[in-house]
């Protein structure tokens, strides 16, 4: 009898584990899916290590590890995916230890900002932008003890030397939000 209970318990556990998808797993699951656009950018492409950086600045730049972008551009075929997929993402963000920083917009068009970690030592920032006619973009900035104030200072230095700040990598992905 006890054996059956244990087996049943394990089965329930296995099922519930399966249902509790993390954001990382969500990314991995959709990597091979042709309806989605995926972009993995190592931090070195966004914040190139410049010789002009001081030791402190280098340290700040190194707290950013990489940027992951997953997008679902809507067309006749992917339209039906919008609702179930946005709900899946929202459910993961609500459950997977993310804290909402802010949100704005309306149900048909909204941007949400989440983070993980401490407010002065951030491990992950997630931007979730959705538009019921165009699709959604889920961007994650992964890092290790990232600090907002330090970042702002660093970007200020970089914008003085604007050639070192390469945003070109993102232009392609932003196209899906342009009016067709």
């Amino acid at each position, binding site marked *: 009898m006890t054996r059956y209970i244990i087996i049943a318990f394990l089965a329930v556990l296995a099922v519930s584990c399966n249902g509790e998808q993390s954001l990382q797993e969500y990314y991995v699951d959709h990597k091979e899916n042709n309806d989605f656009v995926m972009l993995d950018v190592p931090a070195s492409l966004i914040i190139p290590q410049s010789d002009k950086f001081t030791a402190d600045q280098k340290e700040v730049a190194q707290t950013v590890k990489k940027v992951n972008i997953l997008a679902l551009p809507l067309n006749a075929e992917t339209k039906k995916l919008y609702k179930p997929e946005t709900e899946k993402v929202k459910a993961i963000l609500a459950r997977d230890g993310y804290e*909402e*920083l802010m949100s704005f917009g309306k149900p048909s068009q909204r941007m949400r900002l989440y983070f993980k970690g401490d407010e002065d030592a951030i491990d992950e920032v997630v931007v979730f932008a959705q538009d019921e006619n165009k699709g959604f973009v889920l961007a994650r900035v992964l890092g290790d003890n990232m600090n907002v*104030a330090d970042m702002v200072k660093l970007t200020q230095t970089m914008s003085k030397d604007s050639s070192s700040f390469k945003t070109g990598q993102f232009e392609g992905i932003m196209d899906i939000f342009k009016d067709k």
Partner: protein
Amino acid sequence: MTKILISTLVFLMGLTAQAQDPFQKFEDMQDVASIVVNQKMLKMLSQFDLDTDDPEMKNYVDLVNSLNDITFYSTKNTTTAKLMRTEFNKYLSVAKLDELMRVKDDGKDVQFYAKPGKSDDYVSEFVMFIDGISNSDDTVIAKITGNINLKEIGKIASSINFSGSEELKNVKVN
């Protein structure tokens, strides 16, 4: 016995967590635009310009630091607007807010309420309701919590670009 006690407690905790923001449900309604800014976001924003020497900026950082959260909901839909009014009136009686002032002009009806804080100029919660039903304009609920200096609240208006936020500039303290 203990188990029942704990589950009741957990259940009650769930209830209070839900009752915390009665306006949250508007976020998912069609025709409602919203802004929600949480405390951690405000804390991060205030880190932006820490080493600034500009007294104006420093003032602003202090203001941002004193807030807990900011929420704005607005709609032009009459049915939703009426629901907002009902919800707002319900909230007034539950949260025991004091009326600060009320402005009626050009068919616009703006009401300000607050929960008293540590001194006369400070409130722990500030709520604004703009009734736009009669002149088919935006109906807005704004709620700000924190340790808010009423004299400074107009400054929030300039940083939030949202329907009705400019009304905050009209808050006057005697």
